[in-house]
């Protein structure tokens, strides 16, 4: 609480003792942080380190539970993003926020269009767009063109122009370059440098180390919601930065891993598996009884890989070989057919895993209705038995299986999702971040379950944003970066240093 900035005159935005909790999870823990005008400040940290929460608090998207924000020394609070904007703090979020069917000029002035007689002044709006685009060196961009027709990199420029329309003192970029090609990144950086020289404070989140080296004046590392250290760019080596990002905290216990089998027969093989530009020629083999983790930063294609395998994505290419036969999976129905026997524990149990208002029993059996039917009718006895079995097997704490599944705790809900799929007797289980937002006890039950499933010969593909889980659970970890598997780690190689280094694509640092 009492850490004063090193040079109070220069700190433009000053956070003191800021804490933010989501339910039982502390996303930011007593964080002091400041940024100055006229500099580019990079924020580093792995998934869940608290970077996004920091940005959301600064830009008024969420409110801190504790702590204070000072702007130029004055106490400030932002109840919503517009309030932060009014104070000169503008954020460019990861997802493009442009409306594709409106023109560039419309988008740039969307929150505060110039008015005349109460109506939008199209001419003034167009002039304003032209000025702003000229400021970022995009004079060639026609303000009247539809955003939908622009390539991604140009849209990003429009996004920046839109942010500048709000006259920011602090410009926050949340992975704003992740969608851009190298040449576009250079252009953006050129603009950012110019803005910095104009005295704007720029705060950037990026996972690309070389970009941070190119643009940042200062770096701050976050880990587990805590601000670890802030240093001048170049003062620390990449290795030191990785070390800072890792930390050393063991919070979960994992079942022991068996020694690697000599030659597990492959259960699932992918050859040159691709989808649009999100999955690039992926080769992956998963043996029977093996738990293979998918690592890497969020959004590098891990989810797409799982969804694609499960038949949800249209237009995948490459070979998928399951249990020795090449298969063509075009829908979840195909995926759970005999001979394929896939199961997917989806990412969001509330919208993808469960029908929340329906009963526990209905949710448990929905994937197995065919199996539980005799003729056209559902076999009531078989159903009751299956429901009891599922509840037993996952030790779901339920009052009555007729209760709505929404009455269960998060951990128990997730158990219902898993039990639903175990009922189909899958041979390959795909898990998409299954332990997110659930308690430690249930997490450990899930780890044990995965291991025991593997021991019965099932194959498991496990995507987790929690590196500790990958290290603790997996026999092998395939680290993905930008739609490719950049490295497969095995045995003792599976450690946080290697995963993070590969995830950031800086192999040298790991050596």
């Amino acid at each position, binding site marked *: 609480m009492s850490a004063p900035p090193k040079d109070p005159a220069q700190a433009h935005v000053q956070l003191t003792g800021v804490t933010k909790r989501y339910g039982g999870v502390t996303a930011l823990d007593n964080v002091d942080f400041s940024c100055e005008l006229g500099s580019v400040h990079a924020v580093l940290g792995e998934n869940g380190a608290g970077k996004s929460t920091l940005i959301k608090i600064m830009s008024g998207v969420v409110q801190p539970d504790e702590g204070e924000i000072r702007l130029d020394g004055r106490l400030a609070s932002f109840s919503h993003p517009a309030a932060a904007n009014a104070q000169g703090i503008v954020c460019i979020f990861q997802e493009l926020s442009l409306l594709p069917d409106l023109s560039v000029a419309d988008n740039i002035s969307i929150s505060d269009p110039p008015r005349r007689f109460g109506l939008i002044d199209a001419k003034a709006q167009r002039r304003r767009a032209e000025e702003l685009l000229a400021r970022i060196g995009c004079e060639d961009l026609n303000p009247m063109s539809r955003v939908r027709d622009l390539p991604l990199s140009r849209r990003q420029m429009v996004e920046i122009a839109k942010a500048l329309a709000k006259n920011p003192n602090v410009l926050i970029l949340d992975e704003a370059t992740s969608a851009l090609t190298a040449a576009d990144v250079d252009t953006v950086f050129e603009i950012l440098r110019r803005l910095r020289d104009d005295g704007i404070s720029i705060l950037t989140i990026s996972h690309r180390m070389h970009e941070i080296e190119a643009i940042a004046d200062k770096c701050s590392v976050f880990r587990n919601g805590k601000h670890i250290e802030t240093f001048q760019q170049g003062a620390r080596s990449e290795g030191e930065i990785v070390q800072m990002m890792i930390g050393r905290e063991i919070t979960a216990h994992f079942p022991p891993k068996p020694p690697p089998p000599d030659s597990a027969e492959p259960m699932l093989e992918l050859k040159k598996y691709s989808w649009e530009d999100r999955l690039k020629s992926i080769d992956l083999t998963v043996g029977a009884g093996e738990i293979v983790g998918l690592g890497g930063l969020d959004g590098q294609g891990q989810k797409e890989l799982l969804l694609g395998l*499960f038949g949800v994505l249209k237009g995948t290419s490459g070979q998928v070989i399951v249990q020795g036969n090449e298969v063509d999976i075009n*829908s*979840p129905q195909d*995926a759970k057919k005999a001979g394929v026997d896939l199961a997917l524990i989806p990412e969001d149990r509330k919208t*993808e895993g*469960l029908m929340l208002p*329906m009963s526990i029993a209905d949710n448990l059996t*929905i994937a197995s209705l065919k199996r539980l039917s005799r003729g056209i*009718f*559902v076999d009531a006895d078989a159903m009751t038995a299956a429901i009891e079995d599922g509840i037993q097997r996952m030790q779901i704490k339920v009052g009555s299986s007729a209760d709505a599944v929404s009455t269960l705790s998060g951990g128990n809900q997730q158990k219902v999702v898993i039990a639903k799929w175990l009922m189909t007797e899958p041979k390959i289980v795909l898990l998409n971040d299954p332990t997110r937002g659930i308690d430690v006890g249930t997490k450990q039950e899930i780890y044990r379950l995965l291991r025991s499933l593997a021991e019965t010969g099932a194959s498991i593909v496990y995507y987790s944003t929690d590196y500790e889980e990958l290290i603790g659970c997996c026999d092998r970890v395939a680290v993905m970066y930008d739609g490719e598997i950049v490295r497969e780690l095995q045995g003792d190689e599976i450690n946080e240093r290697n995963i993070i280094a590969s995830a950031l694509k800086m192999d040298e640092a790991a050596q």
Partner: protein
Amino acid sequence: MTTSAPEPATSRLKISEDNKPIVMSAGFIVVILAVGTMYTLYTQGTATLLSPEYLLQQLQVGAFLGIVAAGMMLVILLGHIDLSIPWTIAAGAMMATTVGGPMAIPVGLGVGLLVGLVNGLGVAYLRIPSMIFTLGVNAVMRGLMVAHTGGFAPQTAATDLMQYLAVGKILGIPVALLVWAVVSMGVMLLLQRTAVGKSIYAIGNKEAAAYLAGVPTKWVIVSAFCLCGMLAGLSGTLLAGYSTKAYQGMGDAYLLPAIAAVVIGGTHILGGRGRYLGTLIGVILIVLLNSVLSIMQMPESGRQIIYGTVIIVMLLVYGRGRKVTS
């Protein structure tokens, strides 16, 4: 309003969220009958409304609406709606009388099924919102029927079997009521005892979750629309039997009451929740309300106002206790 609760199925002391509308509608039916009876006792000195003849006659009239509502419920449970009902009914009736002979009824059902199939394919595969797509199909069917009949009432008459099913009686019980009972049994079994039924609820609650659980969502949606269309065709066939012939616009009076019956019976208009028993009671409520209002010689304008108000008020009352789940 909820003085009596003739709904015992899961009669715990606390009435569950799903059963509340059913109990309330049943209570309201009692209120309607009581008010109507007081009126007749006062004006005629008889309790006509409580006589078995009157009640059976109401159920017979209700059968046509009930059969339509049964199909509509399947579609509403999915979170969709079928606005092509009016001209599906008319088309079923007209084609049945046109063909005549032993094939009349199968043709009536077949026409409905076909319309339902088109609806289902459009909604499930083309992903056009059902509200728009079925409205369009309704207009197309209307055009086709006008072209078919030249804009006049068809001269063909309903077959004897159609008339028997609509107005005949077995042991004093209207055959139409029996047809409705058979349809109801079928729908109830479908919803409670089959994979398709369970899938309908699942899709209505969260289509994405159902899809990811490997439920053949498209197939289920198409099936539900097919059944809805076929039941509308059946209802049209019976209606033609009831009035001995088919005529333009004969289905127009059934769309809103069918939706109202389903929703008054407690089926969530956005899908996923509702019991068939509720739909049955909703149909009876609407039929009795209409009948009692006309017995009380309420002018048409007043009837419409009361009728609409009752629907809105009942839905408001249901909505109140319901948790908002986002």
